[in-house]
């Protein structure tokens, strides 16, 4: 598959393009991390994150490739791995305790939201993910999820978001109360 074909598939939201890229450059990208003090698990993690960053950028439609896709992904991997090394280095310093304290509170909040997202049901979850992460238009969402028209998708999205806000607020209050 040529780079242009891969991009065309991503624009359509076809996730098989992501699978293709993952398999194609797996060795090249993971090697970058492994040969720079990373483990195989870290390498896989960085590569997966890099592909998702690429997907997100390509999905937004404002990605102008001036190089091959592989070069672009490689540079993302490189940046992500640098950041990870910096994070590790910071963690080994005295700031560690403070960061962990902040993380626990945030993690708790995020966990509540995550639970609520899962309670929404598959359709609502998909609509919100496609809208906020993949940046799909309402007409794309309508087509992907088989709605009659854009308005139906729009209404559905509004209701799903409202329900999620309510669920999280309710749970968050509950959690505060328990503390």
């Amino acid at each position: 598959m040529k780079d242009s074909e891969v991009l065309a598939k991503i624009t359509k939201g076809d996730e098989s393009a992501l699978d293709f890229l993952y398999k194609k450059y797996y060795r090249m990208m993971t090697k970058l991390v492994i040969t720079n003090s990373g483990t195989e698990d870290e390498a896989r993690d960085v590569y997966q994150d890099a592909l998702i960053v690429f997907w997100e950028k390509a999905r937004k439609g404002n990605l102008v490739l001036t190089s091959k896709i592989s070069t672009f992904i490689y540079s993302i991997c490189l940046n992500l791995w640098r950041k990870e090394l910096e994070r590790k280095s910071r963690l080994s310093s005295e700031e560690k305790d403070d960061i962990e304290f902040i993380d626990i509170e945030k993690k708790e909040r995020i966990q509540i939201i995550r639970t609520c997202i899962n309670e929404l049901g598959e359709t609502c979850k998909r609509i919100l993910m496609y809208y906020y992460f993949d940046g799909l238009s309402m007409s794309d969402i309508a087509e992907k999820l088989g709605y009659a028209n854009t308005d139906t998708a729009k209404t559905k999205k509004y209701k799903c978001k409202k329900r999620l806000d309510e669920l999280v607020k309710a749970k968050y209050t509950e959690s505060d109360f328990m503390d």
Partner: protein
Amino acid sequence: MTDYQEYRKLLDGFFEGSLSASEESKLMNRLVTDADLKSEFEFQKDIINTIKDTRKLELKNRLENINIKWYHTVSNGWKVAATATVITVSTLTAYYFIDQQEDFRNRIDLMQNEIVMDAFDAEKADIPQKPVAESPEEINNTPSTYRDPIVEAKKENKVDEEVEVTSDRTVDVIVPDVIEHFEDVDNIDLDNVTSGDINTMGPSREDLHSSVEIRSVIHKKYTFHYNFSAGTLTLYGNFEDVPYEILEINSASGKRFYLKYKDHFYNIINTAEITPLEPVTNESLINELKIVKENK
């Protein structure tokens, strides 16, 4: 629309990315002074970021479930390089052996002449010299007046007595199959040789072009091994960092393959079993392989 509703709408627009620069600026200014709005902003930010993270996690799980084989075939670039090397080396080796065989043939002729010369040396016989053929056509059109001394000697039953080759003169030469139709060889285009052409060239050159499929495999257990069967050579180990070459030698005893990796040559034999790569230790063979490689 109340003041709060207006800013709440701006908040939604902000997370949907639909605000103009002035609207965004208006919202940001308000966030500095309005604690409730700021709290709602943080709440919405967490929700939307978690939605995004959930989707990322879903995509990550999708990638995680892709079965990446424990081996990776050689990239096309390496395949092309390896195949090109095999073809080039094969072709040049074929030329080399053609020349070698011609040398052998000439040497045998010379030796035969020498032996005959020795046999007749005492008498200083005036032996007609075999004309040197300049071209294959001339070989075939060798004048019928020329008489080969050995043939003549045989005819006269003198060879056994007169041309008695002593043991120290016995030359043990392994003669490769000599091309029967010499004129055909000169006209063969080695780049477009077909199996039919090859057969006419004799069994020592079965195939000038490699049909060997080469792949490299990363394996936990086998780190410098290979197997070679059904025309597929599989190299186990990390062969992607350093260019390697496969030398295909068409010898009188059939095809022989060698791996040139880093500064060493390794034997490749036909085996379906995964076998450790053993370096060639025979110095003269190493030198020959070097010559073949350098001449490619």
